[in-house]
Structure formats: structure tokens, C-alpha cells
């Protein structure tokens, strides 16, 4: 059973109709090839026009879509010889942030990916993608490993935010995030970060302080969730749609603000409709970024990243 978002319903109805016709056709009762082709074309136009005009709030829904490919899907689709490396060596293993070494199109890399899970059981296992201090400390450990062996780091960002809990605070959630950002800035290897779904505030930037920050077309990236922002500034979570617009959290806005380097176009109807295609496009963009950074020295890589963040914010929206 597919999940359809409210604004996808007309598309869903048309697709159901096509399915029905196909079924009739396969029973050989009528020749429906022409009719199906016509409706297919119409559905494609509909998907295109709907998804090219998504509001910020609709993008938030798409970014959180349960069938959207998640971190582990990308690892499976893009990496070979993936060797998962667990634990922060201090307290625990955190399954909200998966890490390891792998081969990406011929290159050895360190991969870090936030994973939300896809059903109740896996969501609980991955704590809904909300990492605790241990997750960020594991990320730090693996970034240091990458630095030592001169391996590029690929990070896939998809979290509503770092976990807000008593134990997480007691073990230094703030410090863990701060050190993770610091480590991102220190390593002499390229960091390519891709916001594949939700880029939730400090929990995201902790692993997204990269040389190249890429973002899927319908992903969102924000300092606070629209719901949280609305409840603070509008005093009502019902104003989340308005807050989503005001926060300028879409890939297009972030590109014009100079926060991200590239928008990766999603397949028609969003990544959840064609996960394999979406994963390949992300892979291509990562590969292109790695190639661009391949000839820089370790010091240049570090300076390039530092300079990028010093420059950010010197301009606003025009």
C-alpha cells in the first residue's frame, strides 16, 4: 500500500484508473493500449505540474514521506563492500546515525548516514533518526578515521533533530554536536554532505559542515521545525504552514542564500515514487563533487571549507 499525501490524491486516482484499465486489458477484453498511453502521459503531466509547484509546507511533507528513500537505502544503493562500524567507544552504539567504510564507485570512503527507519520496529531501533550524543561521538570517531587514512567523507542528512531527552543532556548532547562540527572543520579530507530528507537544525549541521553541501529538490533544511517555529513565534503550531514559508527552508531558497552548493533534481513525483532513480542521481552528484575536490591538498580542503563558512551569511535574499 502506497502512502499518498493530501495533494497527491488526484494523481493517485488517475494512477488507480490506469491500473484498472491495464487489468482489463490483460484479460484481453478490450484493446486499451492507446487509452493507457494517453492517461500515462496525463499522469506524468500531473506529477510534473504538482511537484514543480510545491509550497514550502508541502515540501516538508514530501521530505518526511515514509516511503522516501532513507540513509540505509542510499548506502545499499550506492556503496559496495560496506563495512558498518559501530559505537562511540564510551557509552553506546547509536542506530540513529549509521557509519562505516565502503567503496563508492571505486573510491574508499567513510559514510555517515542518519536513518529514520521505515516501519514501527525499525523506527524504534533507529530512534526515529534522532541521534544521541553517542551518535555524534561515533561520527567524530569515524571522521578521524577518514582523516587518518585520507578517505573522503560522505554524510547523508535526514533527521528531525538531535534527540531531546534527559539522558542525552546528561551525557552532553550540546558538547557532542559542537565537537562534531569542530571535527568537520578540522579534517583534511573532503566532506560531501547531502540533505536527502529533513535537515533538522543542530542535529543536521553536526554532520553537514561540508566542502560541498548538496540537497535533493524536495528536501528541507531549517534551524527549527516549522511546527516549533510557529508555536514560539506565532504562539500556535497551527501556523506551521506560514512558518514553513517564512523560514525559507526549501532547496531553492537555500541555494539562492548560498547555503547549499547544488540542488539535485528529483524524479517526477518525488523520490518516493522512483527511489532507485533518486539514489542514482544523488550518487552522480556526489561523484561529481568528489571529482571537483580531488586535486586539492589537505590544507586546501580545510581552508576551502573554513572560508566557505566565513563567507556564508554575507548576503541575504535578493
Amino acid at each position: 500500500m502506497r502512502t499518498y499525501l493530501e495533494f497527491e490524491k488526484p494523481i493517485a486516482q488517475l494512477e488507480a484508473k490506469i491500473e484498472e484499465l491495464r487489468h482489463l486489458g490483460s484479460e484481453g477484453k478490450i484493446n486499451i493500449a492507446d487509452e493507457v498511453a494517453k492517461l500515462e502521459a496525463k499522469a506524468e503531466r500531473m506529477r510534473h505540474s504538482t511537484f514543480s509547484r510545491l509550497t514550502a509546507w508541502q515540501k516538508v511533507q514530501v521530505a518526511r514521506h515514509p516511503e522516501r528513500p532513507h540513509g540505509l537505502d542510499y548506502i545499499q544503493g550506492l556503496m559496495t563492500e560496506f563495512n558498518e562500524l559501530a559505537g562511540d567507544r564510551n557509552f553506546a552504539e547509536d542506530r540513529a546515525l549509521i557509519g562505516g567504510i565502503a567503496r563508492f564507485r571505486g573510491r574508499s570512503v567513510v559514510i555517515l548516514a542518519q536513518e529514520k527507519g521505515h516501519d514501527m520496529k525499525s523506527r524504534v531501533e533507529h530512534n526515529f533518526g534522532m541521534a544521541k550524543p553517542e551518535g555524534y561521538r561515533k561520527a567524530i570517531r569515524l571522521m578521524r578515521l577518514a582523516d587518518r587514512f585520507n578517505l573522503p567523507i560522505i554524510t547523508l542528512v535526514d533527521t528531525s533533530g538531535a534527540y531531546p531527552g534527559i539522558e542525552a543532556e546528561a551525557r552532553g548532547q550540546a558538547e557532542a554536536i559542537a565537537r562534531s562540527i569542530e571535527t568537520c572543520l578540522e579534517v583534511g579530507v573532503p566532506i560531501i554532505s547531502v540533505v536527502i530528507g529533513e535537515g533538522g537544525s543542530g542535529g543536521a549541521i553536526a554532520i553537514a559542515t561540508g566542502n560541498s553541501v548538496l540537497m535533493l529538490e524536495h528536501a528541507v533544511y531549517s534551524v527549527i521545525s516549522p511546527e516549533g517555529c510557529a508555536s514560539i513565534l506565532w504562539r500556535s503550531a497551527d501556523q506551521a504552514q506560514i512558518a514553513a514559508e517564512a523560514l525559507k527552508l526549501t532547496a531553492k531558497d537555500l541555494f539562492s542564500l548560498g547555503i547549499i552548493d547544488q540542488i539535485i533534481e528529483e524524479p517526477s513525483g518525488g523520490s518516493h515514487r522512483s527511489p532507485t532513480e533518486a539514489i542514482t542521481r544523488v550518487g552522480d552528484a556526489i561523484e561529481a563533487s568528489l571529482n571537483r575536490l580531488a586535486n586539492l591538498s589537505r590544507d586546501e580542503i580545510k581552508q576551502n571549507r573554513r572560508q566557505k563558512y566565513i563567507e556564508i551569511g554575507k548576503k541575504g535574499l535578493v
Partner: protein
Amino acid sequence: MSWLTNFVRPKVQVSSDRSGETPDNLWLKCNGCGAMSFHRELESNHQICKDCDYHLRLSAVARLNLLLDKGYKRLKLPAVVVDPLKFRDRKKYTERLKDAQANSADTDALLVGYGTIHNVNAVVAVFDFDFMAGSMGVAVGEGLLHAAAKAVETGSALIVIPASGGARMQEGILSLMQMPRSTVAVAMVREAKLPYIVVLTDPTTGGVSASFAMLGDITLAEPGATVGFAGARVIEETIREKLPEGFQKAEYLLQHGIVDAVVHRHELKDRLGEMISLLMIPDRVSNRGDRGAIAQNQSSQSSLPGQSHAATP
């Protein structure tokens, strides 16, 4: 929540009117014990309640005056892009900024002073919580970068004193970007082998806590200060549990190994002076004097003759 909102006027007229300055009859209620204190009395005690030792919020300017030796200078901070997102909630961000600026001598939430602390070079960057809850946007991030550059240029320790609810939401993603930007500031000071000390004051939360504020070579906290990543309300809503007594308070952080020491405001200057002197001037004769020996140098205010000391390269 600002303690300023708690002010009440006394029912009895103040008997001794010592000066003509206004407001003369302002009394403040202590958040710790509820006792009423005359504002001038609090001021002379650096906003610490005489009855219960509760640390009320100290203004950013008073903080600079408290910590830096006389004659310190203010660092002029650069103008930055104003309202980068053209943000408006129930009110335009530009109007909120104007209101905040009207109530402040400064243009944003960070003030930077430079000079010496007990004759050792120091740059002190202080958050002004009264300015939009000390929230961090582009101006604050830029201010921290400039403070760090000044520390490097003058061979000074960098001391940062956050008091902030976190990110400036009205600057959206650009406020989030101040987390890596402020971390670059810390890196600049580290690379110059100068001390970077953080004094956590009430409150330090959100994106401020999860960046430069947790990266000190030494991290101190004021008694009773609330410091943490997630706000108490968000945590309660997430886990649906009551939070333990003293949760996210300075003393709790000390117990959990997150800060080096909780330091009383009256001792803060001496402790900072001593720490940066220990880190920057390894061969100096102790300025506190040998307690067992002839008491020739009892005041921690006194120091080596004359000049300031830059870091040894």
C-alpha cells in the same frame, strides 16, 4: 524569562534618597528567595542576592566592567546584512530589531571588550540577553569572528560569556550557519595557541550551547545557570516525564562532567585572571604570593610591574 519582568514598586516610600538618578524607588524581587532588594544594593553586589546568593542576570556592560581591568576598550563590530530572509511573523523582524536596538546602546546581542584581566591580555565577548534573548544571528557570529581575530592580533586570551536562548529564528538557516562560523572563530584562537575560556551564564541553550559554548579549553559556569541543548519543555513533551530537580543547572553540569568548575560571580575575575595567567605565562612568580611566606602580594589585583603579557609564541 527576564528577572526584569519581576520588578515591583514598593508600597512604602524609600526613605533615603541618595541621589537624583532615576529610577530611585526601584525594588527587585529575587528569583531565588523572593526577597526584595533595592536596585542599587543589587548593583553594588553585581546582581547577587545578599540573602540567598542567587545570581540575577548581569547586563553585558556590567559584565565587561566586572571582568576587564579599567581602561579596556570596546571592539567596534562590523555591520552585517540586516533581515536576510525578509522575515515576518506576527511582527516584522526589522521592527523587532528596531525595538531591541531602541532599548540598547548596541546594534545586536554581542558586545566585545578588549584589554587585560589582572594585567594579562584578554578579549571578552559577552552576550546581551536583553537583546532578543541573546539569540545568535549573523551579527553575533560575525562579532565572535572579530573577537577571535582581535585575540589573535593582540595575543590575548579569548573569553566568551554566552547568555542566549539559542538561534535567532528570524534569520532562519543563516542563524544555524553561525554554529560552524563561531566554531571557526574558536579554531582561529586555538591555532594561535591562545586560551579560549567559556563562562556559561543563565541561560545558555540551543544552537549556542551546541557550538562555540561547549568548545572551551576551560568551561566555567555561574551558579544556578541553566545550560543545555534542548529546552525543558521540549524534553518534557518528548519523553512525557517530569524533569529531575536541578536538571540542566550549572551544578548538574559539574556533576555530569560537562564543566570544569562552577564559579561564584564575586570570584570570577580572579579565577579567570589566574587561569589565563597560568596558561599564558608559565614562568611567572605567583601573583598571589606564597601563603606561608611573607605576605607581600596579598591582593590578587597586584601583579608584575607594568605591562600586559602577550602569549609566548
